[in-house]
């Protein structure tokens, strides 16, 4: 019953998750077992790149949940990603211990450099992995809760909401740039040595992080499916399509938006936490408003309101970016802008819409009795 609801009825999702699972099996094999001389060998660099993409996919999933299903266009989700990343970065910094350049047993290098004598209170506890992981969830979740509570309660919607989320991430960018904040300022947190005792750059660690990212993506996908296929999911779609009708049906729209926003922010935070050990650095640049816009483009490209479309979008756009920037980095932004325009004009349902078009009977024609859940599905794909 539940598998039917969550997975089997979601063909595109099954395919995408299948590919992710396949990669999780093949990539480690091709990296470890296949000799480097073979053309099937996958380098550790590639493993890390794919791991990064999985984190992006998780982030895109978070955005699609609120944008595609509830119509909340957050242009500040990069902030939650970065906060999750910083929480992980703080753990990784504390793991360095006395191995820093200044050899201080407790203080990270940048604090010694600033002449700080003791660890600020908000760095306490981050030497414990469980605590840091808790913060990965709590910090983005709490910020989203407070921010969302204020915004949704005052009924800030549409483009106004998008603008204030941009302002939020920009404000955080400026704050984290400041050395006095105690997060390494401009340089951010880097020079990590190990995670849970394993050397961070080792092959095995990289593979594990890649697998953890894939695993998290699958769990998050199933959780999102659970939400959107529940009655709550229908209410969320109703809020997107007819907010005041939903309200006059007796639903407290603000609460629905708020909890969905918080959940989405937590997913973004987890994505950031998995991302940081793989790229080896977190700096204020991750708060850049442009990042948040870029990830909305991923979702639009893949196809919003489908969940798996977000994953497809994150992979294609970022793969394109990797290729593109190796030829002509300075024109990437133009390419991204062009992509957004093209998708908006030509592919309103994104890449997965292209793939779905031939198969699905348009909802308007299907008038005969059929099971409710398939109707709901057609409906979702028609938005």
């Amino acid at each position, binding site marked *: 019953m539940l598998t039917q609801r969550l997975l089997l009825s979601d063909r595109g999702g099954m395919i995408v998750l299948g590919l992710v699972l396949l990669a999780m099996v093949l990539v480690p094999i091709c990296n470890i077992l296949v000799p480097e001389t073979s053309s099937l060998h996958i380098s550790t660099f590639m493993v890390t790149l794919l791991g990064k993409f999985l984190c992006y996919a998780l982030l895109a999933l978070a955005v699609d949940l609120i944008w595609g299903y509830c119509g909340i266009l957050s242009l500040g989700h990069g902030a939650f990603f970065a906060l999750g990343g910083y929480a992980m970065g703080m753990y990784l910094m504390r793991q360095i211990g006395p191995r820093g350049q200044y050899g201080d047993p407790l203080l990270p290098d940048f604090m010694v450099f600033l002449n700080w004598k003791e660890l600020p209170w908000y760095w306490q506890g981050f030497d414990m992995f469980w605590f840091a992981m808790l913060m990965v969830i709590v910090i983005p979740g709490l910020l989203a809760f407070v921010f969302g509570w204020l915004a949704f309660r005052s009924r800030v919607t549409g483009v106004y909401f998008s603008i204030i989320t941009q302002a939020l991430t920009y404000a955080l960018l400026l704050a984290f740039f400041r050395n006095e904040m105690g997060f390494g300022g401009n340089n951010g947190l880097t020079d990590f040595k190990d995670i849970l005792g394993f050397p961070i750059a080792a092959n095995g660690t990289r593979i594990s992080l890649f697998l953890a990212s894939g695993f998290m993506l699958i769990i998050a996908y199933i959780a999102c499916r659970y939400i959107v296929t529940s009655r709550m999911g229908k209410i969320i*779609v109703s809020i997107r399509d007819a907010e005041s009708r939903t309200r*006059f*049906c*007796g639903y*407290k729209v603000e609460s629905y938006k708020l909890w969905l926003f918080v959940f989405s922010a937590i997913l973004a935070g987890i994505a950031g936490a998995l991302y940081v050990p793989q790229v080896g650095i977190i700096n204020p640049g991750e708060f850049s408003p442009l990042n948040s816009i870029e990830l909305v483009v991923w979702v639009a490209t893949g196809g919003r309101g489908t969940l798996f479309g977000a994953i497809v979008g994150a992979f294609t756009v970022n793969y394109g970016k990797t290729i593109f920037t190796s030829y002509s980095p300075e024109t990437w932004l133009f390419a991204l802008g062009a992509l957004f325009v093209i998708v908006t004009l030509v592919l309103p349902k994104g890449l997965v819409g292209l793939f779905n078009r031939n198969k699905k009977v348009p909802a308007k024609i299907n008038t005969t009795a059929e099971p409710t859940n398939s109707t*709901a599905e057609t409906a979702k794909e028609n938005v």
Partner: protein
Amino acid sequence: MNILSQARRSLGQADPNFGAPLDTTKGTILYVEGITVSFDGFRALNNLNLYIDEGELRCIIGPNGAGKTTMMDVITGKTKPDEGSVFFGQQINLLELSEHQIARGGIGRKFQKPTIFEALSVYENLELATAADKRVWWTLTQQLNSAQKYRIDEVLLQIGLQEHRYKNAGALSHGQKQWLEIGMLLMQNPRVLLVDEPVAGMTGEETEKTAELLLSLAGDHSVIVVEHDMKFVRSIARKVTVLHQGSVLTEGTMDQVQNDPKVIEVYLGE
């Protein structure tokens, strides 16, 4: 127990106790008194008084811009008035409650423009409107129980959409959408139904069916219908209230109202 203070105490979070029987001992279910609403100095409602009896079918007419929709906004909590009071029964002050609480409490509203969930099926539209626990965490796991399913079937029959239950609501005809919206109100087991221009844009046959539907609802519910179509109003009206420039111009039977010199002046003056 004093429902009002209960609502206050809970900071507007929990619902007032609508489960307790509504106090309508005086026979009146809705008291709208001295309501004034201004938009940038313009008075959309001006000291409006309106009393609706239990089970009554009331028609409200008036020229465009008379404030009919604004009046519904005030009763349903969408617009807070500058002055006046709105009571549901003798005890519940609607001005202290928000839209979703008023809706849960038994005042359903149909919008002027049909507003349904077009991406969902007819059945799902009714499912969402079902009177049930509507807090976020419940809806994550909740399923319909058999009583609720039975109620949906009942309402589908009532609004004449039983053959379209799995159809996408967006694919319904204009008239069917209006009925579906009325059906959604019925799912909430309302005491009062506010229906804004139900037959605008309907065919003659659809209009007749709508008149039948609304007449069948009166008695079990108090129904307030705002309408422009005089022929339609004549076919359903028992008591008519004429609104003009934000206040009540006159009240009475259709014949009384149509022969009232003030009304003739307003309508001819247009």
